[in-house]
């Protein structure tokens, strides 16, 4: 059974059909690429899956439960996390606190424990801090842990977004153009981190990316969309040779 199943989803904005009768099926542990020209509807698909928008038609199921129409925070707590194409960090918070926010939902602290700052709460805070620092180490952000997130260089901000998303302990991780603005060396490092997210954290990854080296190097399956519809689906090699894909990229853009 698929961990995430998008079935027959359509989303229109006014007269514009951004996503049209789309299907995506992610098997547990997949590294799955979603590519297509600008404006193809990729980010809209992410917004549908994460509950920012509700599909006009179709269903989205996570591990067998329908999730479309639920609040974004509820969907996040059910196990879908994401990064944003235009970075959306908590800019005034430190790098460490950004990750800590995501841990909140795992074990919610009691209000009275918080107000009275009980020993139970302080132990919990220590545990949260330890886990957060460990995650930051993996993402090579531990040295900047106490700096404001908005002061990080671009590539580090993108890595922090992934770390923050992983801290929610998701089943499925959606990455929206994580390599955008990265230099080649950072992009290589990113590829390792994405693979590691699957191998060490057990998440299923859905990756939207324009950097073909990253997509082809990371993904086992790739789905190509254009004008909100699927035009190709297959292994990286098949996709690279598909005439409809070449047409969409070269002819369309």
């Amino acid at each position, binding site marked *: 059974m698929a961990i995430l199943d998008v079935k027959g989803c359509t989303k229109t904005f006014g007269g514009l059909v951004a996503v049209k009768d789309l299907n995506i099926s992610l098997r547990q542990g997949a590294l799955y690429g979603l590519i297509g020209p600008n404006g193809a509807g990729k980010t809209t698909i992410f917004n549908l899956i994460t509950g920012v928008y509700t599909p006009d038609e179709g269903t989205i199921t996570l591990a067998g439960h329908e999730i479309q129409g639920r609040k974004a925070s509820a969907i996040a707590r059910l196990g879908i996390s994401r990064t944003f194409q235009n970075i959306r960090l*908590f800019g005034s918070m430190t790098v460490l606190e950004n990750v800590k*926010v995501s841990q909140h939902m795992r074990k919610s602290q009691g209000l009275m424990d918080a107000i009275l*700052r009980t020993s139970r709460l302080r132990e919990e805070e220590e545990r949260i801090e330890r886990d957060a620092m460990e995650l930051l180490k993996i993402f090579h952000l531990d040295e900047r842990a106490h700096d404001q997130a908005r002061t990080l260089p671009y590539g580090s901000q993108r890595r922090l977004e992934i770390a923050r998303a992983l801290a929610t302990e998701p089943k499925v991780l959606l990455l929206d153009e994580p390599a955008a603005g990265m230099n080649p060396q950072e992009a290589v490092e990113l590829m390792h981190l994405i693979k590691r997210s699957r191998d060490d954290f057990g998440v299923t990854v859905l990756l939207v990316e324009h950097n073909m080296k990253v997509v082809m190097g990371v993904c086992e399956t790739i789905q190509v969309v254009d004008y909100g519809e699927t035009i190709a689906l297959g292994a990286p090699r098949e996709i690279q040779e598909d005439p409809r894909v070449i047409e969409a990229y070269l002819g369309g853009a």
Partner: protein
Amino acid sequence: MKKAAFWIAALAVLGGLQLFVRDIVGAYNYQILVLVGINIILAVSLNLINGYTGQFSIGHAGFYAVGAYTCAGVVVYGQEAIRGATGFLPELGQNTVLLLVGLLCAAIAAGLAGLAVGIPSLRLRGDYLAIVTLGFGEIIRVLILNVEAVGGARGFSGIPQLSNFFWVYLGVVVTVVTVHNLVQSSYGRAFISIRDDEIAAEAMGVDTTRFKVLSFVVSSIFAGIAGGLFAHFTMYLHPNTFLFTTSFYLIIMIVVGGLGSIEGAITGAILVTVLLEVFREFGAFRLVNFAILLVLIMIYRPTGLLGSWTLVRAGRRPGRAA
């Protein structure tokens, strides 16, 4: 226990000061000192919703009024019964019970009012809260004007003096410790995440509506307590104390001191309360002075004196979740 020691020390210091402070500073300054304390409670609590959570409430005076009138009403009309039930206690003990019962009712009433205002207006994105809180403040004032039992337009007199420096500054300590602990916990991180980026906060599993309402209700509860402490200090309430200008001055306090900083809210409360006294002879022109102060702060120190976050620079980022 470090905590027990802290509270015993706080009680001892405040109780000790209560014995001398009025004689040392004089009656006039004593009055201002107590007023400063009440405004610290109001500013620190308003800062929770406006500074930390990034929502814009401009009706804090409404919750202050709910607390003041509830506390005074409960005490004035319930005092016979409460004194009867606590007849075995000395006068000071009876007064303490009376004040605490009044403050509890004030906190509950203001908290419920916060819930009633917060749930419908905070579920929506955007600045509905500003509009609704503004309306709420005015509605409460007009309601009070028409309730004869609490004096209506004549004002509510005959309120026993139960509150003083000790109680007000105990209120300050409780408020500061509560807000400080709250913002240092996962609740505080949720509040700030909403302020920084609501869409990202939702995506990380923060139920933004729930945390906005929570922040607003806690903020309202403390405004209610401030109201009760005020009522039993001045012994007289008038609806005009709770005009929109009161909310406006509270906003100035937190913006001047620094949004999202407890020290900032305290500094702002002290500064603005004292300046208001200094400028008293200016009458209505005081408002102009403060508007100018606000503009200067926005230009030369947009983070406020002690804050780290500004309305201008880090304003909300709605729009598409790209």
